């Protein structure tokens, strides 16, 4: 698979984030910050990945940003319900 190292790096970041999310279960404030951190890390990964492949475009950055916002807003509002 192409870009395997990039994807493994992404999975490592997300696994650490997920682990922290699990460890801080029931501490909503920390979980929210972890979610924000994951979103930021994801956008940065996207930018770096496409920059390395020399195919970076503002539309691609916008897409990663929107996907991150979409997922993070949903989870943060859920966490805020308790």
């Amino acid at each position, binding site marked *: 698979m192409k870009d395997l190292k990039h*994807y493994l790096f992404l999975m490592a970041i997300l696994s650490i984030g997920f682990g922290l999310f699990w460890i801080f279960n029931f501490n909503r404030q920390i979980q929210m910050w972890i979610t924000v951190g994951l979103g930021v890390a994801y956008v940065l990964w*996207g930018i770096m990945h496409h920059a390395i492949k020399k195919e970076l475009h503002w539309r691609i950055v916008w897409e990663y940003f929107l996907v991150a916002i979409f997922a993070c807003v949903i989870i943060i509002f*859920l966490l805020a319900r308790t």
Partner: protein
Amino acid sequence: MDLLGWVRHLFVPHHSNNCKARILHPSVLSLLVALYLFGQFVLNFFLLVSPSVLGFASNITPERVLEVTNQKRAENGLAPLTINSKLNEAAQRKAGDMFAFNYWSHVSPSGRSPWSFFQEVGYKYLYAGENLARDFMNSESVVEAWMNSPTHRDNILNPNYKEIGLSVVNGTLNGVETTLVVQMFGTPTSTPVAKKPTVLPPTTMANVPSLKPTPTATISPSTLAKEERAPLGRVALAQAKGEVSSPPLFSPFLLTKTIAIFLLGLILGALALDAVLVCQRKIIRLSGKNVAHLIFIGTLLLAIILTTPGAVL
């Protein structure tokens, strides 16, 4: 465009949607975020106008919370905590204060600390601590959540504590029917201890910023509305009846969770279909990586699925 054509336009990449499922376009993703936020706004409005419909039904008893707490202490070679009626009263007043002044915190909006409740009921302590929980299903899950949090665990497994007070109170917090659990730990000044009498440093308390007792005049007990008090001298655990006369119809948390799972699942499915078709048809386009989006959204979807109601403080 007929319904089938519209669904195809939404989920299948072809020339009509610029070779990318329409639902994955930035404009539609933005629209979904906006709709979700609007839904949350409507839910909040509904909570304000009809709070009794929304809430969380639980089956927590102070007796079971005490039993499980002492079980955890026994597993760690610690002596069981004994019930103190004054601490029960303090826990009860604390819960009543949280409902009356609509806050979820160790310190009230007016700056009233947990220690003022100890003083108010006349409990003189060498050591004191407080654990709070809300919206759990049963007693076991409350104690388990506290045990999973290092600061709360330290309170439960603190060998300095000799006595405990508990209250489980139903009421309305921020418009939602809520079950609050207050656990107050203490060691009375009369208990002989090897070291010089002192209160524990803040680091050993659960998220409590200050140990200096706030003057009890900050909020008079008579201003505590809707509060239930155990009779003086009563040693049995106090459980307020609260205001809940019938279980709420549905929980805002579970409703939000269902919508969240549906939305993320929808995008996840669309991404997977889009990835397969783009690969099959060898479509070349300027776009982010679907595999990366799938991994990211899949991880957060898993986090949402594993998120259960309940919070500790």
